[in-house]
């Protein structure tokens, strides 16, 4: 049975109709709204590739049925920044060349976006703890942590490039 839902994605309101009431947000983002920066990795929330912000909190979009995000505000990597207006995190990932294949990065960046947005003192331990459920197969971990730390420090001190 098809159902219709209103969601706010990257500050824009959308009404979408899905055939299956449990259709995960991930498929709506990619297939209906054509926001393909949010990626499928496993389908059961264990790799973090599909992470988006839902009302400011990092969540796995592959596991979020549409009914659960009704009326909520969602931010994807496209909403964080664009090629000509990079978010400090995106900027830092490029500066540190923090990635190899890059498939895991948008989910990691969104996880980091919640961490940075929550304020607090930047620390490597907090970053590693926040990334506990994000996987990277190419082994870019140390660069990723450094990039997030730099972006966090820059935003904590107001020095955003």
């Amino acid at each position, binding site marked *: 049975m098809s159902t219709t839902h209103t969601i706010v994605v990257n500050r824009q309101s959308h009404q979408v109709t899905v*055939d*299956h009431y449990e259709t995960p947000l991930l498929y709506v983002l990619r*297939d209906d709204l054509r926001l393909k920066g949010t990626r499928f990795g496993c389908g059961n929330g264990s790799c973090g590739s599909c992470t988006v912000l839902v009302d400011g909190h990092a969540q796995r979009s592959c596991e979020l049925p549409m009914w659960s995000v009704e009326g909520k505000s969602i931010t994807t990597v496209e909403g964080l920044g664009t090629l000509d207006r990079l978010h400090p995190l995106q900027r830092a990932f490029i500066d540190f060349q923090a990635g*190899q294949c890059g*498939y895991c990065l948008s989910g990691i960046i969104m996880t980091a976006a919640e961490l940075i947005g929550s304020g607090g003192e930047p620390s490597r331990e907090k970053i590693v703890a926040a990334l506990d459920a994000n996987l990277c197969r*190419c082994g870019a971990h*140390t660069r990723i942590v450094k990039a997030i730390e730099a972006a966090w420090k820059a935003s904590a001190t107001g020095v955003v490039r």
Partner: protein
Amino acid sequence: MNPAKLPWSVEENPRLSQWVDFSEPGIARVFSAKVELGQGIVTAIAQIAAAELRLPMSKVVVVSGDTRSCPNESYTAGSMSIEVGGTSMRMACAEARRAIVERAAIMLNADQSSIAAEGGLILLDGAPSKLDYWNVAREIDWQLPISGRAPFAALANSTSLGKSIARLDLPAKVTGASFIHDFELPGMLHGRVLRPPSYGARLESLDTSAVKNLPGVVKIWRSGDFVGVCCDHEYQAVKALEGIGAGARWSESEVSADSRGWRELLPTLRSIDSETEAGERPTTLKNLRQLSATYSRPPIAHASMAPSCAVAVYDQQGLTVWTHSQGVFPLRGALANALGIDESHVAVIHKQGAGVYGHNAADDVALDAALLARQVPSRPVRIQWTREDELAWSPLGSPMVIKIEGTISPTGDIVDWSSQIWSGPHGQRPRPHGPVNLLAAAHLDPPIPFPEAYEVMSRFAGGARNSEPAYDLPHRKIVLHSLPGLPFRTSALRTLGGYANVFATESFMDELADAAGVDPVEFRLRYLSDPRARRVIETAVKLAGWPLNGERGKGRAAGIGFARYKNSAAYVAVIVNVEVDRDVRVSKVFAAVDAGLVINPDGVVNQIEGGIVQSVSWTLKEQVLFDGRRVTTRTWDQYPILRFDEVPELAVELIERPDSRPLGVGEAAQGPAAAAVANAVARALDVRVRDLPITRERIVAAGTAQ
């Protein structure tokens, strides 16, 4: 300095027009069949082309992995992309620039020595002339063969070569769409394929009545044991696959894929043997002592972050496939064979996927997409595998057993070294004009069964990679037992046999050093005359401050591993620090690398870092398990990989050799890193674990046995 011999890629694709094109004003388009796998090759190729053409990188466009326009360079594999593909591009672009200078001299009626081609302009006596590269290019016969003798640009003068240029593909990847998974064509359908529950399972019956009426289902197609579905939207396809799975009745059989005890199992299997022997045993030494040890590695999964994906369309032009395959040309041939169509009607175009570390399911899913696209002519079809199928059905890195025997004198001189290796095939990639090795082909009616291992059983077989120790040994004998009949599909995984062979060889070097009571670094240096090998070890030692935590059995120690990948690519020495409490924790890793001429230093460091981390993951955590019928490690919980809180600190030092030829690095660190971890654990616990992965259970078992 130009190499004396033309690289393979140039021999196969000798004409300039196959490599470079100036038909669009302001742009130099270069063509390479080496594709981006996350290793930064496209950026490196652009750096090379820009340097040799003396153009800013913004004026160079790399066309990569397209059978319609690129030279056939076969696979992007074996750490050969810079060595062969990069050197070929360098020759092609140096030759192109020389041709431009020569033609410009004629057009300007000037002496060649007064002409320079710089930044797109033709300079005459240092001043801009009326000509640029593009109007000169129109007057050149681009069918010219590449001689390989046009002089290379000097590294010192280049703004791109040897510089840590940022990856060209990274900005798109941190801001939005950029992968094959994100590629969309008008009218594209989304499909899924049902895989059998186990090896050898047969589809007895299929009831699709409930699925046919689901929303968006456009086509369900069955052939033999293969069932695919195409839908308007992706989640419709997910639901349709669930329904198809529920309506399928399979008969299964035991295939004796048993994951208990590879070290016991592999030597009992049918094998094809080959042997190499070199040197003479010294006869004068007395009181010799013999050591023997057997090591093993389990099957390892590629475990790419993304499930494999492909898009295909069948129309009047024939079949067009977009793929993240590592070899668009071999895949084109394999698809044509599997589908029974002429290769000239197939175009294969590379699109980036998640990191692939060898022969994963990229080629398999391309056939899935082609098969289903044929059922819905003119409509593009996108197929994506499930996470479970990706872990269970991608070809695996083969299990291996390595038994080494060594003889030493009382003063620690190695008198004799002999090893036996049991390994399944590592080189079963699809071949363009040979057997089809694509998953779906084996499930069709009529099936095209998986070929028996066609990897040549010789010293070129992947199982033999790095089986020859890099040390100066008086006598050595290597016997390779190739196992063609493993009950599951194995093929190329990063390093092929190199990872396990270096793990075994370097573990055994430590065992010999211990028996002789010699420091493992000093012991290695005794047997290394190659100054480049010595230098990486000495550099790593300096970085790490060896000897660290020298006392045995205290739970903390350092270990070393060294190899020259393939005995012909980059030299890498790795020293790790481990702490063993309940589990093994690798806290720090120091690596020294000699990769000859380096095109992009940060790119090399990134590859080495990634290689180390992946190797630590393989070494401490990874093994594909079976229950007698099927792979049971199908989720990230069942097949865990190294997590952020388990990743060591890394320090990598490159030894600069700008006058040497470039040496591949993508697979150079894995073997040394594994050995360093094993040697450090052995020292920390005074217990040697010879069966990978080094888990808590394995440590306990090894401790009980020793």
